[in-house]
């Protein structure tokens, strides 16, 4: 394999992983605050459709030549949809004290159906897309340049968002409080933190990010809209949130891992066209089961024990895969 092919592959991985990464970051934030938003798959599809349709209509109605305004409009619509759907889950859980899983599951089906229903007139139509901007000086750095600095705008934004999410969660006071709410709502309450308000806020933010992730598909990585355009992606995202141990950076790593697998599979498929596509399709679901098995079983604990004694504590810390204790539970204020 030539170095240019490798560069192309790596660049492709960086780009392909972005939308999934956005969704994972969004859901990580939501779950860190203690709310499970199971509607991910449906929300992403709905917001992909909404983002595309709004962008398209704005472009047609406004007669815009450039893509910028329509795309912005599309993203806003997508983020708004994501946030609103997440709001339903949050409200149902916090105010009505209903089962988050049930509400999320119904929403995921409903939103997927709505997406297909409302989007049926817009299938397979070309539309606006996110602008490609190669960063001037940086993109000419050998090897790293084309891999990291020659992408569409939203790709850069995604990585920035991931970093900001990590920084907010682990380096700021509000982020610390949010983590406290997710871990031990009772203790956070005792310290005067507004449990409901915090959960609402971060569920909305997470939902907006998920919405943006959906739009990143229809406006960038998988242009356009079609029936069941990105079916299944949301479930993969949910699994990677777990794989990433509810940590933005590790979740991002999971996204890249997944993107790498997908890119490699596509590349291999091109090299060996006789192998039925079935195999590559199966791979992503086996991978999902694989990562969950890895995290769910004893393997990691045994790994920690095999390590030399001084390394054990930091390794155990790095490999913490426990969910926030308060995840999915309603908080009853006394």
């Amino acid at each position, binding site marked *: 394999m030539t170095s240019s092919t490798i560069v192309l592959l790596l660049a492709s991985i960086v780009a392909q992983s972005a939308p999934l990464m956005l969704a994972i970051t969004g859901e990580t934030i939501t779950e860190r605050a203690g709310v499970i938003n199971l509607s991910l798959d449906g929300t992403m599809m709905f917001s992909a459709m909404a983002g595309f349709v709004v962008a398209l209509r704005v472009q047609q109605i406004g007669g815009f030549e450039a893509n910028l305004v329509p795309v912005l409009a599309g993203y806003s619509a997508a983020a708004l949809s994501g946030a609103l759907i997440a709001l339903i889950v949050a409200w149902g859980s916090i105010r009505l004290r209903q089962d988050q899983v049930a509400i999320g599951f119904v929403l995921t089906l409903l939103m997927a159906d709505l997406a297909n229903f409302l989007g049926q007139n817009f299938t397979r139509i070309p539309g606006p897309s996110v602008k490609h901007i190669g960063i001037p000086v940086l993109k000419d750095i050998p090897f790293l340049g084309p891999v990291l600095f020659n992408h569409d705008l939203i790709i850069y934004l995604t990585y920035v968002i991931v970093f900001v999410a990590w920084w907010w969660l682990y*380096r*700021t*006071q509000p982020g*610390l409080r949010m983590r406290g709410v997710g*871990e031990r709502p009772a*203790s956070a309450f005792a*310290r*005067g933190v507004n449990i409901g308000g915090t959960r609402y806020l971060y569920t909305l933010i997470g939902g907006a990010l998920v919405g943006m992730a959906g739009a990143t598909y229809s406006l960038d990585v998988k242009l356009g809209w079609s029936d069941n355009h990105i079916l299944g992606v949301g479930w993969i995202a949910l699994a990677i949130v777990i794989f990433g141990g509810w940590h933005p950076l590790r979740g991002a790593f999971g996204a890249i891992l997944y993107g790498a697998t997908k890119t490699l599979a596509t590349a291999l498929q091109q090299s060996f066209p006789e192998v039925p596509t079935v195999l590559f399709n199966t791979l992503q679901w086996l991978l999902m089961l694989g990562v969950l098995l890895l995290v769910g079983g004893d393997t990691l*604990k045994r790994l920690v024990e095999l390590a030399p004694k001084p390394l054990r504590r930091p390794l155990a810390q790095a490999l913490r895969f426990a969910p926030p204790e308060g995840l999915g539970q309603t908080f009853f204020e006394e």
Partner: protein
Amino acid sequence: MRVELKHIHKRFGDVHANNDISIVFEPGHIYGLLGENGAGKSTLMKILSGYQPPSSGQIWVDGRTVSFHSPSDALRIGIGMLYQEPKDFPPMRTVENHLLAYDERLMLHISDASNDLLDAGERYGFENDPMVYLDTLTLGQRQQVEMLRQLALGAEMLILDEPTTGISAEQKDVLFATMRRLAHAEGKTIVLVSHKLEEVQELCDAVAVLRKGQLVGQRARPFSTDDLVEMMFGQSIPRTERPHFEDTPPVLLVESATIHTYSLTIEDINLQLCEGEVLGLAGLEGSGQKLLLQACAGLLPVRSGRIELDGWQVKGLRSPLAAGRWAAPLVLLGMTAWYLVRFLTGTIRGLQLAGGILSALLIAGTLQLVFMILNAWTSRDAYHEFRTRGGAYVPAGRLEEALVPGLTLTEHTALVDPELNIMVDWDGAKETISQRIVRFGIIGRPETKVEALSGGNQQRAMLALLKSPLRILLLEHPTRGLDVTSANWMWELFSERRQEGTAIMFISADLDELLERSDRIAVFSGGKLLGIVNARQTSVEELGYLIGGKVDER
């Protein structure tokens, strides 16, 4: 800071938990709030610390009324409370825990906060490591961390809710010394909530006694034990006679057992338990008693060594189909070999070989999956084997571990019935539980759901569900949260079991209970079994020091 409670009432539906209570707390003193479990002490202090609002009544601080919407309001005014289970964040580091909701600044200044913690630690005499994760600390250490946090935030009054449960005698001495210093030297107000007379007598300047929700009386130093007892109970408590125990055949054998979990490992445990004997497990929370108890019940695997119940080794999962795990690999190997042979002898081509291997993988894979399913389906847990052989394990968490919320008493009876037919005999179950309700004095009806029972009645229900006779009974904190009468009654029941020949092993944090009820006491400290002492020949002080880790050379 002068704090006054004026005519505090608190009602929960029909229950009048606090009935017209008025107390004055002057700064620079240590107060004791004494009363039996259920007397209303915790409720009152939760009101004072802002966790709950009173139904009526007022709280005055330095001559002004105050009202709290949350514990952090109270802390801002200067009233802090330390719960038995600290309200902290175990997966976080000490410094993070300290910083959470500490101030309104955006950034976390970790190094500043670390230094503050170290300074404060020196000032108040607590050792602490800001970078350590809270869930690696003992309960006592976490209490100290929480205390430091509240002092740093300006607490003038500290309420401690049963702080000596689960800490060693030495830690208790340190704690009491700190309390004295905080009150007498620094002018803070300390309130010690406890049901332990001796501690209150040792530490407090004044005492308020609650009984059944009412303030029965207040006294200042010096205290008269009889006076306090009468206020607490309204009567004197009869001491029950400990039954005599003689040589009997052994029931449980623990030999060089090592039990390992993520947070703790206990090694080389040796002990033996005979019929009708009572063994108490003493030690700080997190020293290994629960691990041993659960391992004996088959709930935790034994890493090395053995545990035997009547000669049967308590072992992990029993899989009758274990041999079947070889089926799939064998098939895979066999088929692959077959195809290889045919390929090498030229009977089939390369592509067919690939196809053959693929189908071998598929078939072997399916076989393996089927085996896994059947194996999981037929495996028998060690714990269930343990139960079949006459063992019983009663956990501490009543609704979390021992009873199923949502099911009625009758349903529980049917559930644990060993002679279960396909169709449940509801009438029979109802009959049985009705008898047991009478026998065990449970306040409830067969169709009552267990979560509607009070804590004490839930405990009675748990015992009512046990089989008879048992070979061994493992109890985790059997009398926790019970009043004296209920506790006595439970030990009467256990006494009966002893007569039947049941061996009993129990965990307790109450040194008095351990000394009074056990024949022998096994002392755990820091993950080691320090030794087994004869309960009749030891004292509270000695036991306390043993728990603290000091092995007495005798």
